[in-house]
């Protein structure tokens, strides 16, 4: 038995707050693993996704749901996707994906790299309008659409995961600044 125990800590301490019609809450407990496609290995990669995750390969900018692990696959780059999934043992996140995909993908754990915030409610687009330069209109950014962009100098991955709901991921080290930026946007547009 180890003499010193290590307790994990969520980036934003489980933050959750409601402002008028908008709720803003840290999302914890999800694993995030990147998978890069070996050069020339597109077919094998697609087969591995189908086999290991029950999912098709998303185009860059799109996401698809998988049958296993409650996974959602996000098309991040021409040769790279992110896999967002439920992993009971976070210490095994990369292994789970590596086991599922075999040698046909290069996987890297990103679970701790990104703080995750869900912003949801009727006023969500009015709030995001203050910091997000992307067009989040229904036609331009329908449910399932994903994009990496910049807000208030910070990298942000935006996933529309509902009619009035967005999952925002931003680097862990600057997560408090990011939360502040989003919260101010909600406050400035609430009521």
């Amino acid at each position, binding site marked *: *038995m*180890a*003499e*010193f*125990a*290590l*307790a*994990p*800590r*969520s*980036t934003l301490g489980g933050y959750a707050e409601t402002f008028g019609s908008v709720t803003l809450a840290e999302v914890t407990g999800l694993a995030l693993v*990147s998978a*890069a*496609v*070996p*050069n*020339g290995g597109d077919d094998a990669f697609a087969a591995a996704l189908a086999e290991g995750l029950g999912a098709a390969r998303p185009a860059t900018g799109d996401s698809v749901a998988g049958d296993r692990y409650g996974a959602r696959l996000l098309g991040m780059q021409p*040769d*790279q996707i992110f896999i967002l999934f439920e992993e009971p043992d*976070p*210490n095994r996140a990369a292994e789970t994906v590596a086991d599922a995909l075999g040698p046909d993908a*290069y996987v*890297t*754990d*990103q*679970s*701790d*790299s*990104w703080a995750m915030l869900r912003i949801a409610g009727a006023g969500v687009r009015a709030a995001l*309008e*203050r*910091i*997000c*330069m*992307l*067009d989040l*209109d229904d036609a*331009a950014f329908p449910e399932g659409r994903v994009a990496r962009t910049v807000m*208030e*100098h*910070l990298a942000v991955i935006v996933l529309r995961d509902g009619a009035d709901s967005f999952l925002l991921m931003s*680097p*862990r*080290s*600057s997560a*408090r*600044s*990011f939360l*502040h*930026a989003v919260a*101010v946007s909600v*406050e*400035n547009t609430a009521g």
Partner: protein
Amino acid sequence: MSGPFRLDGGALDRSRILSFRFDGRKMIGHLGDTLASALLANGVRLVGRSFKYHRPRGVFTAGSEEPNALVELRSGAHREPNTRATVAELFDGLEAFSQNYRGSLRHDLLAANDLIAPFLSAGFYYKTFMWPKSFWEKVYEPAIRASAGLGRLSGDADPDSYDKGFLHCDLLVIGAGPAGLAAALAAGRSGARVVLADEDFVMGGRLNAETHEVNGRSGADWAADAVRELASMDRVRLLLRTTVIGAYDHGVYGALERRTDHLAESGGKPRQILWRIYSRRAILAAGATERPIAFGGNDRPGVMLAGAVRAYANRFAVGAGRRIGLFVNNDDGWRTAADLADTGVDVAAVIDIRDRAPLADVPGARILMGGKVAATWGRRGLKGIELATGERIALDGLAVSGGWNPNVHLTCHHGGKPVWREDIAAFVPGGNLPAGMTVAGAANGNFTTAVALDDGHGAAVAAVGELGYSADAGDSPRASDEATEVSAFWHVRESRGRAWLDQQNDVTVKDVVQAHREGFRSVEHLKRYTTLGMATDQGKTANVGALAIMAEQTGRTIAETGTTVFRPPYTPVPIAAFAGRSRGGEFRPTRLTPSHDWAAERGAVFVEAGMWLRAQWFPRTGETHWRQSVDREVLQTRGSVGICDVTTLGKIDIQGRDAAEFLNKVYANGFAKLAVGKVRYGLMLREDGICYDDGTTARLGETHFVMTTTTANAVLVFRNMEFARQCLWPGLDVHLISATEQWAQFAVAGPNSRALLRKIVDPEFDLSNEAFPFMACGMVNVCGGTPGRLFRISFSGELAYEIALPARYGEALMAALMAAGEEFDAVAYGTEALGVMRVEKGHAAGPELIGQTTARMLGMQRMVSKKKDCIGNILSERPGMNREDGLELMGFRPLDRSQDLPSGAHFLATGAEPATENDEGWMTSVAWSPELGHAIGLGFIRNGHARIGETVRAWDGVRGRDVPVEIVSAHFLDPEGERLRG
């Protein structure tokens, strides 16, 4: 009644009585008033003093083009100078102050400037303050500064907040007058996404100021219904109180929305929002601005633009005087006479410069066709006018119209040049419009309501049609055409007294003539020399008149004379709005290390390193000077063990079949043969052969590496490696992803580091020197099964490790390391101790890698492989970068060991003059070494290795230092590296 000049009618909510103060005097107005209309209603005509001559001035316009009625709004920290009273909405409790006088507004001591006006003409500053030269700083500048400027800043931080935002639309409509509303309706009804922006607080534009009819009803009522319909459309966004300030590339427009300027309190919300509007098409329906005619004394309070007088009467229910005259060169001005007569204001005379039949019969008014106004009288307000014929007419208001200028500004933001249209005597948009923009209505020179409605409607049908929406081409609103004939006329030659062109900058006709006489022929030169068209109004009412005078002088046409360049913003924007939220602590984001809270709880002192906050040192009770803390951290680390959060170093996960070959190309030294489980130091060159970054790369598997970069270059190295991967060697199978944020990484350094780690790392891992030697790496489990990575690398020169765990465990790991280290008296150390130890070891860092540093300067020329292709190796061979007598990184110590060393000092031979030709190099980094007990430095010096033991001077002219130093090896401690291998 809210003031003696208040009329019946108008668009005011008279049930809402608003109390306000001007220069301390309490008055009342109504909801719907501007400060200007409320002042006029209360009979206040003198509202400010002019910039240069301190002439009494009053309200001149009813819009954002106002040159004169500039006031300070609000008080205390909220005070905002140079605010146009004509666009300031009245609210209950508003406080406003006139500006630019000494003494009182009525008795301005600086009004004496007006008496010496003959000496203050164009170019006065340039001519007068030239000599003696020594007078400039001590006499002239302070005197000029004391009397220059208009309003006063509060001197306090702006207490309001500001925001930015982003909007997307198919069609942006700029201006909500008849053309803009017709355009927005047509586009909105087609289903297109529309943004409609207008600077006013009521949409409708001139329809609210006129008595025109649209679709058989009052124009204002039609506008209100149109706005209601637009507001009900999901895909239409109405931006009231919003000025589109500039046209940028690819359909992007900037707009300033004033959210709470019309409220007594902001309610904690941002005062203004600076929008970036992405549009696929835009219709400029910005209307037109009326221009005056120059004549003697035309700046007297009571002289106003005719359209403004009409707006005050029709919309604001204010008579601009009790007995008003008209002086016009066009048909439109006659409408003022008619509307005034209808509202019961006495019209004294209509003076039209044109020799033609009168346009209408105005009850009670004299009609003087072919007449001209040559002078005015009245000390602080107009009392009468004198005609060119010498006849005098007593009146207290004169409405002037010299025609209308289309608001072409935004059409010129991409280099478009307006063109002169003789028939309307005005500039209209030329070619070269911003892509996607069309112009409609008065902004395009189509001045009648009927044509404006048609034009706006048609422009929208065409614009959204291009985007695949079909708008009903047949439902354009209807109105009748008004008479708009105009005869170009700019100034009255028979003027007595000064005839003003630019009232904001006190520029007269004579100044323009004089500038021409002195050789200023280009309009841009004219502007700079006379200051015409500068400051808050940018000459909106002045420029064209001045161009006409200039054209007369040069014998060219106005078309040939051209305009000055129009640049954003269209109207003034507070700097605070540009800053938005980026103020104070929010200037930029802050990045925190995993152990930040742990360090903060222990009183660490933090330093900004880029966006990162890093612990600089950890003061302990009793330590009163930072050196005490840093010395302790260094000695404790070197004596036992120290722990430092090094998470900020960039980490890049590199995978692929060709990853090793790829590393061979981006690093100067070889990586192809690095064994799995080993780490290697790597040096990165730019293609020009200069060293720009270094770090270590560990091979975790056959196809898997993890690279570290310096904190500062993490982003740049990643970008460059993506460039190499995608653009230079796209055939290599290699994939990159940043892992900087994923791993919390700590340096554990010092002779007891292994003993400490044995308590943390799970026992199945053998940490012995044989099993895990210097430059080894491996996956380990920590504290009972938490998977992590361990690297045996050393920046301090001690036996040292770096241990990495997923970031969520970072804070816990820091605490565990410190707890495990208690028996060794382990110390947490910050960046300052880190820096001291790296200087002691002679490691190059930021101060050495300055964009001119070659591998040879660092003594690493042999690391640059000649057996492989790598970025920078060919150009690193250039002879100038490999001179035998080139700069070399060396150590330096003071001859007098009690002296400290100046960083940045230049090296000079003993006795040499401090001159560039004697410069031998410079000191890059200095530290006080607690182990050696004296100051040490690193620096570049010519031919350094051959000069070990030589004495030179470290000369620092800035700080007045001149320290004799000895050249030594840069490796002050343990030059053979026995400690780190132990």
